[in-house]
């Protein structure tokens, strides 16, 4: 059952086609990889999916509760409200806020008390704030960050900042999670650990995951299907073993003359 359909998605920056005619389909509960050489347009696809860029043409359709919702052109916060959350390639945490606040901010859209209750700190406020607090700690525990809840995000080691980005994305209660190079800058041991974590959250949060990654061992190991982008176009799609032996993919990564590849 598809949960997200991207149809002929195109984004032009002036004369440059950053993304052209990209078709992607995510099925419910899948873990799909999006790979490609530097500058292939992977992050641009993410920015289009999450509403940071407006597409030049094409459609993005979310299938939820037997309803088709067109989400192309929506503002990022509306996309998030429809259940798509993301992490960023170049970490974009709220650096000067605590770990706890980073997570609590992402819970904003699910908070129900109104402005007057916030001003007066009524019972509705305290009940819900307590729930938010408890829930944040539960989420932080998943990636073993709960003992650092009062630290400023910028003081965390690099790997934990990447983890916090994932926790923050989960806090928005998404149905689709977009991970932009979650293993960038991690050593093999950390990457292996992350792999386990990604599996775990996918199963426990009933998620569909689309993942950009440069670490081929990670991608080949965990992705069920892979899309390969080059110069803004999908040049291959399939299961990892097919992608590994696909001639066009090898060309894209290693150059045209591939006799020795």
């Amino acid at each position, binding site marked *: 059952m598809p949960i997200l359909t991207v149809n002929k998605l195109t984004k032009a920056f002036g004369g440059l086609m950053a993304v052209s005619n990209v078709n992607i389909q995510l099925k419910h509960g899948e873990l799909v990889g999006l790979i490609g050489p530097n500058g292939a347009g992977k992050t641009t696809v993410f920015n289009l999916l999450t509403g940071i860029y407006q597409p030049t043409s094409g459609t993005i359709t979310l299938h939820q509760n037997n309803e088709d919702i067109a989400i192309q052109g929506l503002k*990022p916060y509306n996309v998030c409200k429809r259940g798509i959350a993301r992490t960023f390639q170049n970490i*974009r945490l*709220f650096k000067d806020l605590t770990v706890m606040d980073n997570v609590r*901010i992402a819970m904003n859209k699910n908070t129900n008390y109104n402005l007057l209750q916030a001003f007066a700190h009524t019972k509705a406020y305290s009940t819900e704030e307590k729930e938010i607090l408890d829930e944040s700690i539960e989420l932080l525990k998943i990636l073993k960050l709960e003992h650092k809840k009062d630290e400023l995000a910028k003081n965390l080691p690099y790997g934990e900042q990447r983890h916090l980005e994932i926790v923050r994305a989960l*806090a*928005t209660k998404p149905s689709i999670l977009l991970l932009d190079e979650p293993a960038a800058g991690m050593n093999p041991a950390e990457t292996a650990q992350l792999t386990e974590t990604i599996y775990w959250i996918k199963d426990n949060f009933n998620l569909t995951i689309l993942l950009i990654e440069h670490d081929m061992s990670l991608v080949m190991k965990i992705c069920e299907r892979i899309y390969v982008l080059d110069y803004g176009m999908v040049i291959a799609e399939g299961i990892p073993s097919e992608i590994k032996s696909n001639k066009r993919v090898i060309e894209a990564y290693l150059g045209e003359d591939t006799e020795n590849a």
Partner: protein
Amino acid sequence: MKKSINGSTLKKFITLALTFAIVQVLVSTNIINDYIFSTLATICINIILATSLNLITGFTGQFSLGHAGFMSIGAYTCAIITLRNPTMLGFVIGALAGAMLAAFIGFFVGLPTLRLKGDYLAIATLGMSEIIRILFINLDSVTNGAAGLSGIPQFINWGWLFVFTAGTIILLNNFIKSSYGRACISLREDEIAAESMGINSTKYKVIAFVTGAFFAGIAGAVYSSYYYFLEPNLFNFQKSIDILVIVVLGGLGSLSGSVIAAILLALISTYLQSFPELRMVIYAILLIVIMLFRPQGIMGSKELSLTVFKKWTRGLRDKKNGGVA
């Protein structure tokens, strides 16, 4: 858990009651005479102005130079209503009406201008505040034009000053410690990340702007009722800058910083009144020196609390012990 919440609320309540009672006693025994009381009034008005501007500029990160404009709306509305209905009730209605009108104007100014960022927003809000001032000069029949309004009934005593000032601080503090406040702060930190986490940036910017304008209106009402004289030029560009100076000096994103800076600056400028020819020079030099040595402001983005105080005294003690050893 519940007990500790009640305990801290109780502590806050006792602190507030004590502050009120002590000053009240000092006022009734005339130790705080009219001269000192006018400094006290300035401090309170500046605290309301600075904390509310801090919400817009310090917490939400929207650079506004129009706070004097909102203050003037509150001041004129309250003055006009109390002149027609010189009773305590008239004053309360005037103050609330002034604040509501300021908030209303804030909404209509904020909706289009908050799409602008940084310097552009500053210029837009500055323009808004100048338009309001020019309107007050030219609306002769209502505002008596450039000559101003005089003989505004004076209702402000220590009780009202305390209610408005403490009320503003408590309400703003509550706001900041809620989901709404956190959303505002996230916009200051990283707008794109915040939007991607489901925060509607325009909505929260407008909420912060309207709330700030509301309390600026309250400050204006208090001002008009204490000084019983208003003229449009009291609320010029210079006034907005004065408020901004308090906010920056106290620390962007710290309510207690704004309170401390408002008190400090009022005391300095009262003290410097003995040297009228050098007053502004010394004042400016002091500001430069403070900003050189503490560019993040007196409090940075931290809040003054008992735990901070405890840490600080413990630090001093440790230092002392270390020195002895």
